[in-house]
């Protein structure tokens, strides 16, 4: 049977990088949707009509770097909520791997503290005891073979005792430096099996979740992808960007593609420009060492903001599934025209915060933060204008900005529309009309607002802009599950829709690369801005040049 399938394998199964180099589509995952049913469809007749109509198979999740901050703050509380809130099946188990010389008992005790602090579901002795029965710990260095020998033996035992059926979800919660060694050892020790198109889905599965950063530039991203791809096929790789797990980001898709009202005006004919702001009030929060090697562009723009650009600008996918959605996102990214050469100076701004006040508290300058060089050349603020060269968006600038130590934490997308072609009220005079704006607030106060003109009551004609607000919290009550909860469940279900695909990551880096190069090669200054302000004034001139201005979010 396998032979027959192999003979029918397409020979033109290739996709292309933006630089024209070919990518094996088996790595990319194209075409497979039409060839086999989605992984999440259940054959269990009792699943029909249930709120959770998808259920993951029993599995063991192996977390590398389990003693780190990410596990304590995000992963373990989310896993406890999933297990005790019953989307996860009986026997679901977690094996933590890290360098500390812990044993199972120590691991369980440490994790209880983390879960009590971060989980939504109450922790009782009884519920914890039953959850903790599935927690195991393997100490060891990530670059030593013996660690993986021990891990394999432990997994075999857990499979037997906890009926995990050999299903494994690997999670890299380590420094990116360890991604390569871990993946190589997983392959060499035959803990992870490559599952390509010929994989029988009745067999046990293994998948790997990779945290960002997915590289530092195009080259390193490709190298990382090649390294992961040597052991895992693209269908097994889940690159996590927690922004896509946010309900409000997914609601952008619902807003655009589940309503007839907005899509007809969602194009260059009606939209004047788009603004995306991802502002943080916090500084580097003790992660100065990491941030020094990253900066605002790599940390935020290449990942989160380009994700937002793609969901705002993409064409409607035919299906809401892994490859249909991601195909459209990649198409948009490929149409993005980044500034190159001298344009980098004109269409991008980078900044670095100086001492100031945020929320009434004095805060130090970036260069005075711990683990930050006093001569640092890392930007804490980035603003830029991107253009998308396609039929829908040609001529519509996308203005992006992100920064640390801005006045408040806010992420929003604003679609600003053109003025009406003819204003019949013009003769009345004294009209102060601003254009229609649709604002999608991703966080906080998640919701959607529409600004439009209305007549002020009275005998004379006075028009004023008013705002119509839809607040998630006021319409649907409490927020849904945490983004990690959603994404971990999706990874266990084998649903990659909300994860970044290889070509998506590499294309995003391709968009950013000319800017990175320009900032390195050209004399592009890093403009200082006072902490607690909306960035350097140079960012304002970026828009003023086009007779536009940043919104005050």
């Amino acid at each position: 049977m396998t032979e027959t399938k192999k003979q029918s394998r397409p020979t033109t199964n290739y996709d292309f990088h933006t630089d024209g180099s070919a990518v094996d589509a088996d790595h990319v995952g194209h075409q497979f949707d039409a060839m086999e049913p989605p992984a999440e469809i259940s054959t269990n007749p009792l699943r029909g009509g249930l709120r959770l109509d998808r259920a993951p198979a029993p599995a063991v999740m192996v977390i590398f770097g389990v003693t780190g901050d990410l596990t304590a703050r995000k992963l373990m509380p989310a896993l406890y909520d999933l297990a005790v809130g019953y989307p996860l099946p009986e026997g679901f188990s977690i094996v933590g791997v890290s360098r500390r010389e812990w044993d199972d008992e120590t691991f369980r005790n440490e994790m209880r503290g983390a879960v009590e602090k971060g989980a939504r579901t109450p922790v009782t002795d009884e519920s914890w005891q039953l959850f903790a029965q599935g927690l195991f710990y393997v100490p060891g260095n990530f670059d030593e073979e013996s660690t993986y020998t021990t891990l394999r033996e432990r997994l075999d035992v857990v499979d037997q005792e906890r009926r995990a059926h050999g299903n494994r979800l690997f999670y890299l919660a380590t420094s990116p430096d360890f991604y390569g060694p871990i993946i190589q050892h997983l392959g060499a020790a035959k803990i992870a099996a490559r599952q390509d198109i010929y994989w029988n889905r009745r067999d046990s599965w293994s998948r790997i979740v990779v945290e960002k950063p997915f590289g530092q530039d195009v080259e390193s991203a490709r190298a990382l992808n090649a390294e992961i791809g040597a052991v895992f096929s693209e269908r097994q790789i889940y690159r996590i960007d927690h922004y896509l797990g946010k309900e409000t980001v997914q609601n952008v898709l619902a807003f655009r593609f589940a309503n007839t009202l907005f899509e007809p005006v969602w194009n260059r004919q009606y939209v004047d420009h788009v603004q995306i702001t991802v502002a943080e009030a916090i500084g580097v929060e003790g992660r100065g060492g990491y941030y020094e090697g990253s900066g605002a562009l790599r940390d935020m723009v290449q990942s989160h903001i380009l994700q937002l650009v793609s969901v705002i600008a993409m064409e409607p996918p035919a299906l809401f599934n892994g490859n249909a959605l991601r195909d459209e996102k990649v198409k948009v990214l490929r149409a993005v025209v980044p500034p190159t050469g001298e344009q980098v100076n004109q269409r991008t701004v980078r900044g670095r915060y100086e001492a100031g006040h945020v929320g009434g508290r004095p805060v130090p300058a970036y260069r005075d933060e711990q683990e930050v060089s006093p001569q640092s050349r890392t930007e804490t603020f980035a603003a830029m204008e991107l253009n998308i060269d396609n039929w829908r968006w040609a001529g519509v600038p996308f203005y992006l900005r992100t920064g640390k130590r801005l006045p408040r934490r806010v992420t929003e997308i604003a679609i600003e529309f053109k003025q009406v072609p003819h204003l019949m009220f013009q003769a009345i005079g004294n009209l102060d009309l601003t254009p229609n704006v649709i604002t999608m607030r991703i966080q906080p106060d998640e919701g959607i607002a529409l600004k439009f003109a209305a007549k002020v009551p009275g005998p004379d004609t006075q028009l004023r802009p008013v705002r119509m607000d839809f607040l998630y919290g006021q319409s649907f009550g409490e927020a849904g599950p945490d983004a990690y909860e959603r994404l971990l469940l999706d990874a266990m279900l084998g649903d990659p829709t909300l994860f970044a695909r290889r070509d998506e990551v590499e294309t995003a880096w391709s968009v950013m690369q000319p800017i990175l190069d320009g900032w390195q090669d050209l004399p592009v200054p890093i403009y200082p801005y006072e902490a607690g302000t909306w960035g350097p004034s140079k960012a304002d001139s970026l828009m003023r040049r086009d007779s536009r201005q940043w919104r005050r979010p």
Partner: protein
Amino acid sequence: MASSVSTKPILASVWQTDTLDTGAIHDELNQLWSQLGGPLKGGDAPGEMVAEPNFGGGGLMRANTLNLIAVASDLRAVTLIQETIARLRDFLPSRTIILIPQDGTDHESGMIGPRYDVRVELMEQVTETDEPNLRFEVITIGADRRETGNLASLVTPLLAADLPDFLWWPGGGFADDPLFEDLLPIVDRLILDTAQLGRDVQSISAIRQILADESNAPVIGDFTWLRLEPWRQLIAQFFDPEDVQRSLHTVEQVTIHYAETREDGSAGLAAALLTAGWLASRLDWEAIDPLERQKRGGFWAPLRAKDGDRGREIELRLVPDTSPQARFSLRRVKIVAAGAAPGAFVVERTDSDDILTSSETPDNPEVSRMVYSRRPVSDEMIGQELQRFGADSTYEEAVRFAVGLIPS
């Protein structure tokens, strides 16, 4: 953790009348809203007219979601509805109309009082977060029972336009109630609690009458079905692995333990019947004979799976839990499979917060776990029901099967 929420009336108007003019109610509502309108402040752009920080005046927002009609057929229901509305946090109706059919005679004086008591309120929900406070309307109409026949015609013009209309009937006695009959055609969704139908197996067939008229039947939301959600999830989860799914084809016995009578007068029998109906309809079983009452209490019925030439018999047992501890509508569900794919699968509520599951098959060692599943209270359930709009065909199929088990 959830932020704390409190809801209270902020403005109200009360009057009694023999002739109810719905226009007067609208006028009164408008008057109350205008009393709340604060000065508007500027928005982001020059001249922008936006209330601070959201429109509605003074950091307030008006709910704009749905109409809820709630009928209090007795004093207990009045309290339940009012307390539930005050505690609602997940999904607030724009306008709630509470109807209270009442005795119009003043018992002290023996005089016949006004035919209608009307109370119009603006409620405000305040959270500890910096989100704007949310305001919504509650219209309470106490009507002399002589006027019950007019109530539906009064309700229709009071419904806010372009919003879905929900009817919540928290009591059990809706069968043959003329007000229920009148309101049913004007709503999109009916919310009830079949547990309130009691332990009389016949009374549960009342739900069948509602579903009988398929073209006009409203979509039904049932608190009892909602309470069964975790049970159904956990039972289904046993059979997600494909090797365990084979046991679904060899089930020989289903035993459901339910509370005979709960403190509030409701019973677990409806939950037990719905669970049996759900399993049977999903697994394509049919009833050989209707339920047979057992001497020691409870019921027994033979079912048949339609697979194979002769089918396979399944024993259904509904066992009442009459112990003083019987606090939960369902106490325990046990599914036993035999033959080629044997196994035992148990879901059991251990207390008001937790459910214990355990399962065992020859290929899989016994595994137990505790899941957190706090019994939902009325405001949580109504909050969830108000967010659902579509029909639940799984529920309707379960009801049809369950009603088919009831002896004629």
